[in-house]
């Protein structure tokens, strides 16, 4: 654990050195590309590792999924399962989303009026 953290810190320090003290040059651009490449690689690896989309053995195909698909009509009376989820099972999230819209309006209007 200590070694790992030390390595991480060393990488951090090295990276910061590279960015802080190298002059603006082609090298820096290359390094940025390399870093982006690393990040991209990590993301791609993550996605590749994810369960296959739509496969029935996926972790998200659990009891929640079963319930949403099979019992939504009985639970909510809505034949559109999406509506059942967003406005009944997870209605609080939707309230939050409505609030996000309201916040955006408030932010925009207050800024327009202030300046």
């Amino acid at each position, binding site marked *: 654990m200590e070694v790992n953290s030390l390595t991480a810190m060393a990488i951090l320090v090295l990276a910061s050195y590279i960015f802080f003290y190298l002059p603006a040059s082609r090298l820096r651009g290359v390094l940025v590309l390399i870093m982006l490449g690393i990040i991209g690689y990590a993301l791609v690896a993550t996605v590749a590792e994810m369960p296959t989309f739509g496969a029935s053995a996926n972790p998200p195909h659990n009891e929640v999924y079963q319930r949403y698909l099979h019992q939504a009509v009985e639970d909510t009376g809505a034949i*559109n399962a*999406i509506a059942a989820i967003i406005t009944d099972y997870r209605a609080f999230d939707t309230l939050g989303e*409505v609030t996000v819209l*309201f916040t955006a*309006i408030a932010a925009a209007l207050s800024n327009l009026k202030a300046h």
Partner: protein
Amino acid sequence: MEDLLVRIICRLVVPFVQLYGLYVITHGHLSPGGGFAGGAIVGASMILFALAFNLEAGSRKLSHDISLLMESGGAIGFILAGFVAMLLGQNFLTNKAAGFPLGVPGNLFSSGAIFFFSVAIGFKVGSTMCTLFYNLIEGSDRHRSSE
């Protein structure tokens, strides 16, 4: 946009667009769509109107006060519908257990509170779109005139 053709076409099209928006909002629990999508359609119709005619005409149709009221009213309606469930002795935002009549699945007036929620969201989203549009346009107008 002082084009006669555009105006006439808009005048013809806008009611139907709005009707379609209302349909999408009210059939949220029956078909794809719902408050967000339908509200966006209704809002877009107002934007279309304002684009085809001009800002004053648009804001004469839907004044700032009313859009503000709808803005807040939609969200407040959502919360109040949630509170109704609480008054009925259940948790916040409860639907079936609180005793909202679910009706026959597939009918328009079915699925209890979901209908109200959809309508509230639709109001909210529609007014958000046109409020934002009007205010941004007005702001840029004012900005331009001040320069």
